[in-house]
């Protein structure tokens, strides 16, 4: 039992909607592989938890009563811990998701996803997976256009992966087509996310420099 405790994935939940929070907490608690580290409804309470301990997976809603979930994503991401971050979203629209990825998230959940889907997503994410939608892939292709002056550029392989995702192919299909393992495809996606995050921070610095904030 104690061994299981150690290997279980610690999950922290930040969600202001009581019903959803209760449901998600339930899903995490009911799964043996997962353990609920904390469940908060506000940014401030989440911060005080994060000051003491860091989860393996952070599930965070973006619209919180006392601030934006992006703040927490950045905080965790910059702390240097290897926390996988997932955004909880109603629509999973790329507008929200891209911002979260740029801040350091590497996946998202839909609030109405089935319990089993939520469990799988959390475990996959903790294992290094990175979900991606065709629309996000298309947006990322635009961001990493060759003519853009970027700090981090995509490798050929990463570009191929993005192109395939943008056309609706699943990670498994891409792995088969490209002769890669599913895990490798996920790593590529994760790297792409990391590069976007780096570029976004560089852009932010650049913007700040421009506005004489630094």
């Amino acid at each position, binding site marked *: 039992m104690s061994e299981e405790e150690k290997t279980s994935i610690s999950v922290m939940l930040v969600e202001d909607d009581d019903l959803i929070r209760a449901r998600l907490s339930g899903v995490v608690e009911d799964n043996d592989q997962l353990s609920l580290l904390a469940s908060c409804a506000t940014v401030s309470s989440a911060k005080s938890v994060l000051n003491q301990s860091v989860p393996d997976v952070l599930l965070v809603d973006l619209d919180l009563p006392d601030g934006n979930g992006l703040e927490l994503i950045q905080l965790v991401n910059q702390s240097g811990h290897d926390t996988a971050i997932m955004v909880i979203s109603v*629509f*999973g*629209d*790329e*507008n929200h998701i891209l911002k979260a990825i740029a801040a350091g998230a590497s996946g998202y959940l839909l609030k*109405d996803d089935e319990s089993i889907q939520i469990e799988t997503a959390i475990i996959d994410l903790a294992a290094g997976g990175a979900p991606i*939608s*065709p*629309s996000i*892939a*298309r*947006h990322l292709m*635009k961001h990493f256009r060759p003519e853009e002056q970027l700090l981090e550029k995509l490798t050929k392989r990463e570009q191929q992966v993005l*192109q395939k*995702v*943008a*056309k*609706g*192919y*699943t990670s498994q*299909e891409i792995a088969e087509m490209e002769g890669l393992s599913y895990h490798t495809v996920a790593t590529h996606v994760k790297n792409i996310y990391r590069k976007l995050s780096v570029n976004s921070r560089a852009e932010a610095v650049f913007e700040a420099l421009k506005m004489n904030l630094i």
Partner: protein
Amino acid sequence: MRAWLAFFFIYLIGAIYFSYFWLPELPEQLRLSEAHVIASPVTDPEALPLLDKKTVTLPDWDTPGQLNATSLWYLVSFSTNNVANQKHAVYLPRLSQNAEIYLNKQWLGNGGSMRQPVTRNRNHNLIFNFDSSLLQQVNTLAIHLVGEVPQKNYLGDVYIGPEQLLKNHASLNKHLHIDLVMVITLCLLFSSIFISILWLLRQSDTYYLWYAIFSLLWVFHDYNHFLRNLPIPTVLWETLSPIAFGYSMLSVILFIHRYEGRFSVKAERSLLTYVGTLTLPFLWQDLDWIMFYAYFIWSPAIALMGIYALYFLYDHYARTKQDRLVPIFMGGFAIIVFGSHDLLLALEVLPKQSPYMIHFAALLVVVVIATTLITRFVQSMNVVEHYNRQLQAEVHRNTSDMEYSYRQVQKLMRKYTVAEERQRIMRDIHDGIGGQLVAILANLDSGKVAQTQLKADIKYALQDLRMVIDSLDEESDDLPTLLGMLRMRLSDQFANAKLKLHWRVEELPRIDNFGPAKVLNTMRIIQEAITNAIKHSDADNLTISTELISKQDGTQYACIIVNDDGCGTLPTKVTGRGLLNMQKRADLIGGELFIDATINAGVSVRLEIPVSQHL
């Protein structure tokens, strides 16, 4: 007008004063007043036949004409006492053509060639220096006067005295009769060149050309005044000089006509015929005839033309009151006044010793024309600047107007677009999630609905809402991505279906003007096709593929094909409302939909969308 009149009057007085009274009188005792004249062609005073002597008083204006002689000798005796030891000179202020001087049989000099062609000193004075040692108590001065036309020959005053005194007078005399005319002629020449250049730059303003011709011809005519040795035979020169003057007057009339702008072409033609006809008698190249014709017929005829010009100007001024005509009128009037003076002189109505004055008219004309043209130029510049400013203001105003209109149009368009988009979203919500929620409510009310069914219905409604949101994504008009998103949204259905999905989607070009509405319609068509296949085909495999085709007319079509290997029958629902809806949506996106159902071979739904679309 008055200023011009006053200016003209002062100018006239000044010109007369200069011509007649400006030169100082020389001391009377230096003048030789009596002479013996002998008409003889001899060239040496020693050979003179002293028989036929005639005594005349000097200046002698008429004897050469009376004797009809082209070569005359004037012998003047004078005595001198106590002559200071200084340079002396013989000074002839005016003479008809040329002279040679001998003092006490000693040759003092001549004014150029004494033989044909004889040098013309008409307006030049002659002065000959000699040493006082040559003088005796009683002296004889022999003056050999030559001239080609006897009637025109004369010997003016003869002075003998200290060189310095006479030289001063001679130089003033030269300034008045030669230098002044040369300067005026140069002015005319320069104005002619300058105006010619102006004409070359503005060839539509032909009055520049006629002024240039007028002044150039006058320049040629003016050479008659001071040219001493003719480069061409005398007859030809005596022909060309008056012709040049006549045609310069014709040019000035053509100038006036064009400068004024309104003139009778008929009158101008008559003038050309008039001058052309009058030129013909010059063809008889006899010097006597030419001299007679030029002075007695040609010049008065040309003067008549001048009067026409003055009448023309006066008439137009009286009618239009254009002040710009006044100076031109003054110039013309000056030509008439000074020209008449010279004509009377040539016709010997005025005494032969009177000076020629036509060059004063030329000077006035140059001043008048220069002033006029410069004024005109300045006015044009002012007008251009004025219009330029006006144009700039206009452009500025129009630009602001256009900017304002553009902003208004943009505002309206934005308003229209927003309104249209709002309506579309309303319609989508009404047709989609609105209807679905109402149905769920009704089901709930009936109390017969199972929870799983309820959950499925709500899931479906959420899915629909997500599709609407997906269609709003700016990247959603990319067809493969649109299909990919659809696949992701339908992932639950695919996961629960027994058929196997084969994804064969490749890159397609972006469709022109493919907005959210068309994106959503495309999604709905494909969704319907997929749902039908999952629910009704009983197929093992479902293939979703894309291709790009070019039709015969060259238009490219992006095609989406949903193909199953099922029973090949279309559910009655599809043949009815569902099919109709799909067709309607295909029409809305400007595409074509082909549904091909073959029993036991499956159903193929093919949507073709033209890549180039117009709004």
